[in-house]
Structure formats: C-alpha cells, structure tokens
C-alpha cells in the first residue's frame, strides 16, 4: 500500500458533538442509559421500584379513596374506637375511632416528604462538605471538621425549641430542624472516603491533565464513593421519619389531627399488644418502603458501577 501524503484538506474541524467525545470524561447521558438498561434486567430492583411507585400513588390517592368510602382522617367515631380491620375500616380504627386507612396513607405522604427532603439535604450539604473536608485536608479540614463536631454536640432539642418559638410548625420547619445537623454523619463518611480515594492513580492523572478541583471532586471522587453514600441515605430516610415523631413530641412536627407514620407508630406503641393493627400498618409501610428503597438503591449502584458489569 503506497504511502499517502496528508494535506490540510484531509482535516476537517471537529464539530461540537465530536469534540465532546474527545474529553476525558465519559458521556454521562449514555452512562445513565447504560445504567437503566442494566437496571432493567435486575428483577428485584424493578419489583422494588414498582412497589415504591404504588406506595407513592397510594399516598396521593389513598386519602381520596377513603373519602369515596365515606371516611376521612380526622372524623372521630368514638363508639367504634380500636376496631380491627374490616369492610368499613380497611385498616381498622385508632383510639378515637378515626379511619386508619385514611390516616395511614396521609401519614405515608407526609413521611415520604420528610424522608425525601432530609435525604436531599443530606446529599447536598453532607456530600459537598465532606468532599471539601476530605479533598483539601489540612487547615480547611481541621476547621470544618471542628465546626461539624461543635454543631453535632449542641443539644438538638435546644435548636428545635428555638425554632418552635420563632416559626410556625410546617413542612419547611420540620425539614429545617432535621437538616441543621442531619447532614453531618454523611459529611464525615464522605470525608473519610475522599481521603482514601484522593491518593489513587486516576485522581493524580486527572490532576496532571489539569482538571479543576470541582471536576475532580464531582466527576472522579464522589462517584467512586457512591456505595457508602447510598447506604447512608437509606439510613437517613427512616431516621428522619422517626425524628419527625420526636419533633412532634416537642410541638414542631405534624400537628394533630394530621398524622405521619412516625407519630402513628408512637401513638400505637402504648397499646400495641391490644390493638396491633394500629402499629402494624404504618410500621409495615415504613419497612416495605425501606426494603424497596434499599434493593432499588443497591440495583442502582450496581448498575452505575462499571466494575460490576458481569
């Protein structure tokens, strides 16, 4: 084969699209697509996702269904209190004869929101703070770390009581109260992971290629710490749901007669041996939600992690 001389005509300017393929980082859209394709083959994860979707839908339409059945979450039926599940009251009634079906789904909606926002705060504040502490180390780490320790040690009850005094109870106040210190565990965990990961060869390579700090942090380090982050999130959600019940105890949580799954379990615990359904339904929903969330989280993580390819 004869050699061919190259002329400038042989070169064409790269289009924007083509340029992108030259960057060090993998195309993220295709990665997500890829992950989704792999996730779809994971039956457990898909079943979990389906159950989660059903729970979310029920949280939205459940109260509406019970209204069609002539029930609502707040009307008392004192003469029918503590009725076990039957045709009228599908989930039974509570100590004031209120329909547990309506209450459970309303509570699910509230608790889902609480869990979601708490996880979001955890993810945003915790991961960024942890990333900064872990990556920069030295004085930055020392100061931020001490800040976290002080914040973590201040009795949260004091902060919550102060919030009660200056704000009206609402979803925002609840989330605020839970978020003030909720992210710290996540931050420490991410910090530890980053401290370990930042010495890896690919980070040095990225640094040598002149990648910016945020890019190294968000494109290289944090994705590699995703496993522990997802696991921590799955702890944040149930803790937030029960922490909300503690806020109610102080007068900041969901205001009666509204209910959350956490406050319903709190109410039911006193008499759970007598009227187990009052605890059983909310507890089962929390557990089911968490189980599905975990399995789905695992599946998602496996799907996102290229090393897990089989």
């Amino acid at each position, binding site marked *: 084969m004869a050699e061919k001389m190259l002329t400038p005509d042989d070169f064409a300017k790269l289009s924007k699209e083509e340029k992108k393929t030259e960057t060090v980082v993998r195309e993220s859209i295709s990665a997500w697509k890829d992950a989704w394709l792999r996730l779809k083959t994971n039956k457990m994860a898909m079943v979990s996702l389906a159950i989660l979707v059903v729970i979310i839908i029920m949280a939205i339409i459940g109260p509406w269904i019970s209204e069609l059945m002539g029930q609502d979450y707040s009307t*008392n039926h004192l003469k029918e209190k503590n009725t076990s599940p039957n045709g009228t009251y599908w989930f039974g009634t509570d100590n*004031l004869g209120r329909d547990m079906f309506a209450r459970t789904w309303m509570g699910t909606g509230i608790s889902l929101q609480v869990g979601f926002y708490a996880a979001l705060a955890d993810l945003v504040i915790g991961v960024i703070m942890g990333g900064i502490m872990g990556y920069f180390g030295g004085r930055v780490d020392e100061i931020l770390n001490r800040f976290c320790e002080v914040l973590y040690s201040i009795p949260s009850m004091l902060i919550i009581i102060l919030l009660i005094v200056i704000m009206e109870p609402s979803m925002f106040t609840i989330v605020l109260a839970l978020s003030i210190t909720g992210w710290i565990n996540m931050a420490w965990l991410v910090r530890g992971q980053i401290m370990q990961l930042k010495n890896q060869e690919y980070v040095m390579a990225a640094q040598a290629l002149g990648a910016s700090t945020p890019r190294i942090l968000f494109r290289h380090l944090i994705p590699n710490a995703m496993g522990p982050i997802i696991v921590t999130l799955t702890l944040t959600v149930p803790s937030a749901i029960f922490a909300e019940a503690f806020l109610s105890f102080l007068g900041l949580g969901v*205001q009666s007669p509204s209910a959350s799954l956490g406050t319903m379990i709190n109410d039911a615990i*006193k008499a759970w041996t007598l009227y*187990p359904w009052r605890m059983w339904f909310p507890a089962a929903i929390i557990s089911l939600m968490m189980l599905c969330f975990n399995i789905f989280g695992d599946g998602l993580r496996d799907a996102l992690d290229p090393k897990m390819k089989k």
Partner: protein
Amino acid sequence: MKKKTVFSYVTLLLVLTLVLAGCGNQNNNPANPNNSGNDGGSEGQEEARAFRLNLHSEPPSLDPALMEDNVSGTIATGIYEGLTRKDESGNTVEGMAESWEISEDGKTYTFKIRSDAKWSNGDPVTANDFEFAWKRALDPAIGSTYAYQFYYIAGAQDYNEGKTTNADAVGVKALDAQTLEVKLNSPTPYFLGLTSFYTYNPVHQSAKENAGWAADAATIIGNGPFKMGEWQHNTSIKLVPNENYYAKDQVKFTSVDFTMIADSATELANYETDQLDYTGKPTGEIPAEQIPVLAESKKDEFHQVGTASSYYYMFNMEKAPFNNVKVRKALAMAIDRQSIVEDITQAGELPAFGFVPPGIVGVKGDYRDEVKDDFFKEDVEEAKKLLAEGLEELGLSSFPEVKLTYNTNDSHKAIADAIVDMWKTNLGITVGTGNEEWAVFLENRTAMNYEIQRAGWGADYNDPMTYMDMFVTKGGQNNTGFASAEYDALIQKAYASSDQQERIDAMKEAEKILMDQLPILPIYYYSSVYMLKPGFENIYLDYKGDIEYTRGYYVAK
C-alpha cells in the same frame, strides 16, 4: 380477639427473627430468682414482707423545705411525720403532736409534742425542730418554692419576701421542748390538716451544718415510721422500719422498695411478672389504653378512686372571640363530657360542670354534694344559638382562626382531638390544635399567648378555697384575664370568716359567678387508677390521690 392474636404473633415472629439474626445467644437462664412469690404462710395469716412500688422519677429532693412534688411526697410519707397525720378515712389524727388547743378566735394553735417522739438517729423530736424547720423553709436563702404554704402564719410572708430579716417576727415559737405555739393571720379552718403536709415536717438540727443533708441515704435523718435504708440515685430507694418510731409495732412491712421506672408499660410488665406489688397512680401510671382491659381481667386487683383535681381548658378572655361570654358558653355546652371520660380517659373520671372537684370538704360532708355542679348543661341547640349571638355581638361573620394548645401528652392529645371534632360536628367551627413543650407551654400561659389552653389543678389542702382563690383578679394562677370585683369580694369574705357555713356559702356564690362567666371550660374531675396485689391491706389513696402505705400489711391468702 382471634385477629389480634394473629397480628401480635406476626409481629413477634418478626422481632424474633431479628433477635436470632442479631445474636446467636442462648438465653435459657431460668426464670428470675429474685421472685418472692406468694409461697409460705398459712391461710389468712399476717405475714412480714416487703412492699414494692414504683416511682416514675427520682425524687428531686427529700428536704421538707424543698419538696414540691408527689414523688418526693410519697417518700416523705414514710420517713417523716408532721404534727398530725391522716388516717385511713382521711381524718387528721395525732402525729408528732399528741394533742393541741385552738384559741377562741381560731388564730392561735398550741401543740403538745409527744415525749416519746424520736428521730431515726435516736435524738428526741422537740418543738424546736418544728420551729427550726418552718423558719428555715421561710428563709429566702433556702429557696423553698413551697414556702407560701406557710403564709397563713403571722409574719411568714413578710419574712419570706425579705420585708423583714427578723425570723422572730414569724408566728411560730417553741415555748418549751414539748410545746409549739403557732399564730395565724386569720382563722384558717384547714390549718390543722395542713400540718400533715410534707412542707410542715420537722427538720433535724444537723441541717444547719450540712445543707445537702437530705440528698444522701447516709446523712438523711427522719422521724417517720420508716427510715432511709438505701438510695441508689435514679435507680431505687429502700425504706426500712425506723426502730425509734413511737408506734413501731404498727409498722408491718419489712421494707418498702421503690423502683424508678419512667415507662408505664414497663411498670405494668413488672407488676405482671410479680416484681411490683403496686402499680398506677400517684407515683406511677397504668397505660390509659390498658385500663379498660385490666379493669375486666384483674377485677380483684384493680382500684379506682376519685382524686380532688380538675381538668379544664382556659379561654384567653383578652382575645376575640373569647372576650364574649356567649361564645365561651357555646363552646362549653357543645361537647360530650360523658363520651370523653367513657371513651378516651376511661379511668372513671367524672364529667365536670363546676370547678371544685368532689372529695373536698364542705360544711359537713363533701362540698360537691352540698353544692351541686349544675351551673350549666350540655345542649347543642342552645350552644349554636349562643355562638351565633356571640359572633354577632362581636361583629364577626365567621368563627375566627383559633388554636387549642396543650402540653405534650397522649391523653391531652386524644382529648383535644376529640373536643375539636365535637365542636366541628356540633357547631360547625374549626379549631386548630397543637402541643407544646412543657416550658414553652407554661411561658405562653403566663404571657397569655394562647387562645384556648389545657390546664389541670389539684388541691393543696382540703378546702374549696384551694380552687376558688385562683381566679381572683390578677391572681398568680389566673391567666385568663377574668376579673370580677364581686368574685373578689366573695373570696375576701370567705378568707376573713371563721364560720364554715358562711365561708362555704361565699365560695358557692363565687363558683356560680365563675361558671356563669366561664373563663374556663370544665371537662372532668380526675380519678386515680391503681392495681394492688391481693393480700395487701391498709394501703389507700387520700382525698387528693396521695398514697398512704406506712400502716399497710400483708395477709397470705
């Protein structure tokens, strides 16, 4: 019932799985050896044994001057004795004082201290110990929150408030070792009963050297039927018979053992597994929802007695719409009290249509029997009419947004939810509810930063006055904005009089005004529920629900 069992078993199974997964331990140790079962002792034989009960918290203090709660008071019943004490039927009988004389004008009391009265360390109890104790409690430097219990005594309030530093101006004086003279401001018919109250207990002179004498088993000196045996702070207290007590042969229990369990379910579990002989009020609690079940299943052990306390809501009369009496009345008339005590509280409480609870002494018998609480009635139709009229008078087109607040507590929550629902159904008005942390709640009360607030009041002494003087204009406990010159005059009249009929009549009139104006919405009169193991005798609750156990005994069945 079947369904319930299935549910509990599924729950159990779930937990069991967890336990087995978490730890492979074999927990096959035999049933608890500490179990002092009912073995031994023949039929109907009195038997020496311990009495075991629970305190829901550590007593904050056992110094008579500093005590202010019924947990401390329960221990005090065992280790101290005042000039008088209460017998089984609630009568005031001789205690440290073997006799007393009351002057003609009812203002001077002379007590004779019994000569065989001794402290637990063997020292004699003298009149000086009482004078010392009472003046000590009044000394502002001691910081006694209950010092006002002495304000009936001449000069006491001035000394306590620092208007004079001369303790001699206080009208209590030991004439000699055996004679104590007390001078009062005005004739106070219930004063004698007060001398059995724990703040009036004597204090051993050793308190002079050691301010913290009452905080430890080693240094605490009492004069009661029992003495401190062991005190593991926040865990347990053991009282043992005081061999120096003048009536030591009346004391039968080998010890009185208090556990400190705050959780009512745990307390009940301890009772059911025979670790406690007594459970429930006043120093413990039976979980409210268990009460109807236990009342059925443990009929012989279950007891229910009225307690001279009232449960009510306060209206903030300085805020619309509760500045209108018709609105207040409408709300008071539109709830179903019977349903609240039957379906929610379930401990045998009585619906309240007045303020003074049963159990308080009137002229001869019970005040509540002599003065019926038929001041108003539940009537939904009338309530609707009153509400409409009231709102019109206020120029309101609809019921404004108001909130009912209560301190965090399951029972308060259930009652509030139920009442709000009754108002909604009966009057078509929406009232919000919200719980508040205890201190925030109380701060809001004193600042009158509320619309409707839950409240409760228990008697300090056995006289309607302990309730009625709360609502005098600008009174320390009157956080409703209620002000009535007529009411104040009636209370003053009752204060000044030594004639019981006249006093009761005045207070009856005052209560009528109160229930006419309704700054408060009465809900129920409290009762106490407790369970006592069969065989225990002579253990009872007094009119205000405090437990008396010092002369209790056990008969094997």
